[in-house]
């Protein structure tokens, strides 16, 4: 489903060049739950940003379902992000001026669906992540774990081909983290949702199918998890 070929990303900080990705190649199958691990500065998040079209790589190619997504125009990339990809960020990246429900159905509105349908689908998604009763609460009225579940619901509401999660449990306590990871696992097993998750917690390994370890911008090793 995802083919990454010789992906490079160089950042320029003044006159210094930072080689965040030095030529990464790998593939991800449909319905796979992939973990990206590695020490700080290894390029995990940078890799996820390139795959998720949040950033533009310096070199290499990314194919999603045979589409070279780096060849898309800016407008096409926006539409691709809307319809094919879902994101969960490290921080609770939900919109403070919107309620949990509004946050979730906003991407649906953008696809042109009727508002009533958007609300219904948004509500269904919130129920799935166990937040049906908190639908009309604003960001400031939700706990960190609840906010992250809203972000997950929003990321999934358009039925994306791939869900990207960049250290989704970084700011959560163990219990909330477990809830999120179990939710991901459930989505992956029951709906066949393809998930790419960046994490640095060893105990998260048990939730993923496979792990790619990155170090200094290169793949150090690829591993399959026992039991999956």
């Amino acid at each position: 489903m995802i083919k990454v070929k010789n992906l490079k990303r160089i950042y320029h900080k003044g006159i210094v060049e930072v080689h965040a990705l030095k030529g990464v190649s790998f593939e991800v199958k449909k319905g796979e739950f992939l973990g990206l691990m590695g020490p700080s500065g290894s390029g995990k998040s940078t890799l996820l940003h390139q795959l998720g079209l949040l950033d533009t790589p310096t070199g290499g190619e990314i194919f999603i379902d045979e589409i070279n997504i780096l060849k898309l125009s800016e407008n096409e990339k926006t539409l691709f992000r809307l319809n094919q990809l879902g994101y969960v960020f490290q921080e609770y990246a939900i919109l403070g001026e919107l309620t949990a429900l509004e946050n979730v159905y906003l991407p649906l509105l953008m696809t042109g669906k009727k508002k009533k349908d958007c609300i219904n689908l948004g509500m269904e998604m919130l129920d799935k992540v166990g937040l049906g009763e908190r639908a009309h609460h604003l960001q400031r009225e939700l706990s960190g774990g609840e906010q992250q579940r809203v972000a997950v619901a929003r990321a999934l509401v358009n039925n994306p081909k791939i869900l990207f999660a960049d250290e989704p449990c970084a700011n959560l306590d163990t219990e909330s983290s477990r809830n999120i990871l179990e939710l991901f696992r459930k989505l992956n097993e029951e709906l066949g949702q393809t998930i790419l998750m960046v994490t640095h917690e060893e105990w998260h390994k048990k939730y993923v199918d496979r792990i790619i370890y990155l170090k200094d911008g290169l793949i150090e090793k690829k591993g399959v998890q026992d039991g999956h």
Partner: protein
Amino acid sequence: MFKNLKVSFFLACKSIKRSNIGTTVLTIAIMSLIFVNLIFLPSIVEGIAETIEQQARDYMYGNILIEPKEDDFYIDNVDSLQKKINSLPGVLGTAPRYMVGATFTHKDKFIGGTLHSASPADEIVVTKYHEGMISGEYLSESDTDEIIMGLDLTGEEDKEGNEADLGGVKVGDKIEVTFSNGVIKEYRLKGIFSVSKMGMDSFAFITEKEMESVLGSNNQASQILIKLNELGTEKEFKKKFMELGIKEKIKTWEEKTAGITEVVVSSFRIITLISTIVSLIIAVVVIFVIIYINTIYKRKQIGILKAIGIDQRVIIRSYILQALFYCFSGIIIGSILLWILLSYLTTNPISFPVGTIIPVIGTSLIIQSILSLLIVSLIAGFIPSWKTARESILKAIWG
């Protein structure tokens, strides 16, 4: 386009609904005051212009003025000319006048000026001097030894002596008039009028019959004032008069006052223009600052919106819609404030040197003000949102 506009509208509504109420109220208050300022000052200038023009029609020229041919001193055959003009439907009346230079003397004070003749029956139809009598009475057809004078000519008793008046003569006083042909005659002051500060209060009138007896003329006039039924039909009637074969000079009140109005209101118009520009700059700054702070404060949110696939144009449009909300709310509140202000000024007109002024708000002024405020709001809403929304997603989210 429309589905995207729906999202922009949704984002703008939520942003306004959940923004700081104090900031929203303050912004709308500023915008409404700007709108009031955009309309109010020009409406005063328009009021001044209209007062001047109204006075010119009511006291100096009527709707149309007929003057002698190029080399003639008087218009001849006035009676037949009047009949011809009065026969046209739409003409309310005509008032012929003689105008001669004269010196007015009372005791040791004297002053030079222009003496007009009036045919009272005609004059009452065409002009409004009879409504402006502040003392005594207006002329009647049979008056021969009586004169009416404007307040600026008679002067006021209680006020300090002015070189340009007769020092406060009263009704019943004797005024000696020295005509330009050398005739000297004494008249009883029958009435004093005050109609305008645009020079009409320096006029003096005797009856037409009396003027003709002094000048030894008959059936002539220095000018004929024509009053029409409907304002705005002057050009059409001027053409009709020419078709009637009138060879004298025919001028509409607009042609006669073009210069005068311009002289009086030109300075006011410059002040108005400066005030308008300043107001619009304030509007730009206010909306720009509000939207700019808003976008800076919500930079991360803009990044998130872009990351989840919300088109950059949708985000920009949501901020433009917010700017338009401030703009239209300002216009609505400003209109209410203006209505209150105008209602007050209609019953309590402002006293200006040219007379009492009621602000005049034309449709073009309203449209012009709304459009200019709309355009500056669009610009001030677009620039900061465009600047922030075009940032890369990662930079917007993580700085």
